[in-house]
């Protein structure tokens, strides 16, 4: 997994909390910084993809590892 500036553990949280927490965390970051989100909600895979497409933040990586979902989002 590439480098990131901040990490958000959304494990155990269900829709829409992982997205809302991610959005809140991104708000406090600066443009170009990368957020690493860890989630257990299987719906979050499609949701983070849709989130990135609609907000213009780049989803650099999306993968499953050790039963958890990992996302790297670069703030636009």
């Amino acid at each position, binding site marked *: 997994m590439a480098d990131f500036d901040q990490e958000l553990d959304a494990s155990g949280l*269900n829709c829409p909390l992982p*997205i*809302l927490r991610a959005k809140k965390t991104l708000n406090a970051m600066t443009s170009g910084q990368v957020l690493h989100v860890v989630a257990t*909600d299987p719906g979050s895979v499609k949701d983070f993809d849709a989130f990135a497409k*609609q*907000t213009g933040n780049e989803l650099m990586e999306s993968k499953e590892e050790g039963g958890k979902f990992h996302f790297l989002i670069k703030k636009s």
Partner: protein
Amino acid sequence: MEPKKLAIIATKGSLDWAYPPFILASTASALGYETQIFFTFYGLQLLKKKLSLEVTPLGNPGMPMPMGMDKWFPVLGLTLPGMQGMMTAMMKKKMQSKGVASVEELRDLCQEAEVKLIACQMTVDLFDMNTADFIDGVEYAGAAAFFQFAGESDICLYI
């Protein structure tokens, strides 16, 4: 670029139906939508500071029942006193164990994200509701005010 707009009418005042408006509004805000929810009739219950929302299995054949209760519990049994409270407690416990946010939490997130919460003034008067029981930040308006926003919205939902 003008932000997209989401207009929601929330008409229901039960625990299960409290979720769709707040989930959709908070998510839309996170996606950059400007969002308003117009609360009318029983939907006004969702604006109370102290929420006492319940869920009922009555008239709701689609509701999954815990412990196979739907197999051995006759429908009449669901009308017993205390049954609604029990179902509500079970539903809340289930939601908590699955990491689903509480209605209060989602409502707070909506307010944080500047979702505009509008109470139907006519219903407030009709039911003699005390606006002091409602959370801060609620606006009071009527149908015409709703259309001013809804008419320009990209998505409009009646829940």
